[in-house]
């Protein structure tokens, strides 16, 4: 220990603690509006952790799709349903205790798993800092479209992610149609004939 502050670790601590604190805050707060706000901050901090782990592209996507898209969707949902009694819904004490106890057990299990393997504790020998070197987005795109890895490690084992990519795109299409359908039926029922919905 030479006493120099390792800035990578420092930023990890900063983002990690932010993520942890706000995820705990999501659990502890009672108001759904505050939950949505804390969740935004938590996911933003997670994007920061992605950058620190050398996954710049994923971090950017996290910010764009997740924080920018998915969460906005959620907040829409909150706004549409946040009426008087539903903003703060109390949970019974016993459920807090059971939930908390189960969560703590799970946390203990996961933390034990995380710290059990010595190999995962730090960077390779000789590397003083876990310097983050972002993989170029181009490589990610190429891998996604089917070219095998050219860094010599994964060659031969698999040949890219073309098939999953296709499946995901079809899946997205299905989801789009499905959610549009769900939204549509509800409007029809309410508008035309409420008695019909048995």
């Amino acid at each position, binding site marked *: 220990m030479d006493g120099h502050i390792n800035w990578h670790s420092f930023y990890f601590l900063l983002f990690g603690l932010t993520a942890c604190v706000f995820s705990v805050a999501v659990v502890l707060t009672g108001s759904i509006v505050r939950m949505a706000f804390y969740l935004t901050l938590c996911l933003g901090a997670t994007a920061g952790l992605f950058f620190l782990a050398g996954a710049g592209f994923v971090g950017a996507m996290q910010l764009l799709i997740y924080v920018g898209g998915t969460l906005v969707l959620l907040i829409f949902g909150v706004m549409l349903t946040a009426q008087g009694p539903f903003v703060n819904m109390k949970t*019974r*004490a*016993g*459920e*807090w*205790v*059971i*939930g*908390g106890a*189960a*969560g*703590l*057990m*799970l*946390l*203990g*299990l996961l*933390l*034990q798993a995380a*710290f*059990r393997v*010595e190999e995962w504790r730090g960077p390779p020998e000789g590397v003083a800092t876990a310097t983050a070197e972002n993989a170029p987005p181009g490589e990610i795109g190429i891998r996604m479209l089917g070219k095998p890895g050219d860094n010599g490690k994964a060659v031969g084992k698999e040949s890219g992610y073309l098939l999953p990519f296709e499946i995901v795109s079809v899946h997205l299409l299905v989801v789009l149609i499905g959610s549009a359908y769900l939204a549509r039926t509800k409007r029809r029922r309410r508008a035309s004939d409420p008695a019909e919905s048995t």
Partner: protein
Amino acid sequence: MDYLPTILGAAVLLPLISFVVIVLFGAAMRKAHVPTHYIATGAILGSFVLSFTAMCIWLSTHGIPEVHEHDAHGHGGHEEHAAGSHSAGADHLGESLAEGKLVEKGQDSQFIALTDDDHKEGGVGKDHASAAHGPDYVADDWYTISPPGIPKMSIGYHIDTLTIVMFVMVTFIASCIHFYAGGYMHEELHDVTDHEVTLSDGKHLRRPGRFHRFFQYLSLFCFSMLGLVIAGNVLMVFVFWELVGVCSYFLIGFYIERKSASTAANKAFIMNRVGDFGMLIGLAALWASFGTFSFGDVDGQPGLFSLIRPAENQHQMTTKDGLVQVGGASTEGESGDDTTDANASNPASFSYGLLIVAGLGIFCGCVGKSAQFPLQTWLPDAMEGPTPVSALVHSATMVAAGVYLVGRFYPVFTPEVLLIIAYVGGITLFMAATIAIVATDIKRVLAFSTVSQLGYMMLALGMGGWIAGLFHLITHAFFKSLLFMCSGSVIHACHTNEMPQMGGLRKKMPWTAYTMLVGCLAIAGAGIPFLIGFSGYYSKDAIIAQAISFTDANPSHKILFFVAAGGAAITAFYMFRLWFLTFSGKPRDQHVYDHAHESPKVMYVPLVVLAVLAVAVGWSIPWGTDADSGNHKELGVTALLETARPAGTADGAGTGVNFDVTYPAEAASHAEEIHVMATLVAFGTAMAGFLLAFVMYGLQRISAEDAAKQFAPVYGFFRNKWYFDELYHILFFKPTHFVSKLVAKFDRRAIDWVVNGTAKVARKVSDTGDAIIDKGLVDGLVNLTAGWIYSVANWFRNVQTGKLRQYVLFIVLGTVVLFVLIEYSSFLNAGH
């Protein structure tokens, strides 16, 4: 060195002198209004000064203990012991000093290097890969009677660093308590009206104050405890052991007119007798096998420790030829030669079973005295005594005696016995902790906490953590006496024990509140991980590290680790529950709150002194580096205890013959890997407990009453102390009662026997028997069981709710259980 026994002997005798003086002149002094507690306090203070001097003498002659830079990986394999059983005895014997009094045995190349210059020359231990070592000690007899034909009986001493550390701890805490008691018991100076005792004419009892009597018992108690610690042989231990028991009887039953107090005193005494019965058997087994009582070597005659773990056998456990032979063990392998020690490395061949019996018997005594499962029920009831008594008896001395004896007898225990000790400790720890969660009497919470912490120590000792267990004993003594005295201060101010009537007292009695907070933090093991912490932080870490190290070696006993970790969380929870209920929030009973006041100075100054020590007693102070070996020196409880470690136990207690258990070296638990894990586990669990208590009782975000209602069956189960009293009632009281009733009836009808003939009486007896057994006992048991099962099943019915969120919860619990099972079974498979 030569003064050491004299000094400590004087420290033992001072309280006895005080006792005698108060017995003779106490009543006269009361009439003359001379405060008797000056005598008792002066005596115990003198003992403390003498003990402290003894420690300084020891340190100056033996040097500050050095700390070995551990290397856990290359340490301690049992293969090495088996291989290295060739004799090195001649070398070791040559080491003995000519003085006769001072017998020093062996030395250690791996863990501690003794600093005596005499030892530097030999260097024998360094030749052996697994050189065992013995601690420095001074042992001799003051007085001996040896009638012909039976082994000698003597009053002797056995002084090593364990003795000295215990002396300093006991005398210091006892001094604080004497000061405190001087303030607490002041109303006993005059005539007392006891409002809890109503006479037959409807008035309250009025009796003369018993101030002097209290201090006379206190002095006798200190004398007995110190005698127990200094005792040099088992017989003397037993004598003082009983003295401690009888003193606790006097002190618990101090308010003898109260029914609850006198029954509690009886209960404590009887429960202890149950344990002592086992202890007597153990002593008889030891005496019959070895023919000596003394621990160490006295006047050239080997003591128990060197007979069981002779130097010729690398201080590994051995059994003597010619003892009772265990059936089925093969001696043909040794082809009938007349060796005694050469083949002794095969422990199954000789009276191994007898050793197990001896170990179990002695542990039985410790179970009674330290209130372990299943004899734990006396300790909470013993809270009927005055609070200074609770602080003295139930934190630093009497209950500590059991743990101390386990530590002292550690070399005698076989791995099987140690495993049983570990499980008994684990059960006690968990059970008492769960009861402490729901107790509302402030002293009972502390009492159950004490039982639970004693379970911790037994668990640590049973898992091979000799240092860890005894270290926790020392640190626990400080913060638990602090907590008891704080609670006494609260009771003194509020005149009630019930926490639901307190609340908000922080503003009224700040000294008590904040010293108690220190105590709570210390017992919860608060600290900044890897940096510094309260004393409990170090000792609890050591125990959890030992648990990890032990369960790594014995995956089939993984449950012990979970118990240790879970216990830490529960400890933090109930301690902060106590603090928040008592001191924070709004006053729940305005009347009590208005009458509350801070205690007088004589009571809170000892609190502050103890609080400082509760923080600092766990610290190890670096003391430079040894010039020769380059090892670091440290001044601290662990380093001191390390120099008293019994011979041959540094590499672990060996492998069980009858059970599948292997003891790793205790040093293995200092490995970075385990240490980091232990610190994280200890900190995480304590934090979890604290947060839960904070949310429930500090912020009151979660309503405690609501939770109690929802868990009503479990809550009731804990509230009723796991129904142990009821169980004993059914198991022992009812049958006895039944039998005695039957006998009484038989007596009454003995005359009718002649008159009415046999048949009628027989029918009558069988009729009453049928009614009582079937309707009373069997039906009662069955109904009890059925009722219990019904309520449990009823509770389980709630599981099927159809609620989304609970199903999520079941998934989580299922995952956790699955992982634990997989880990457990994979370790089991790997083990075979």
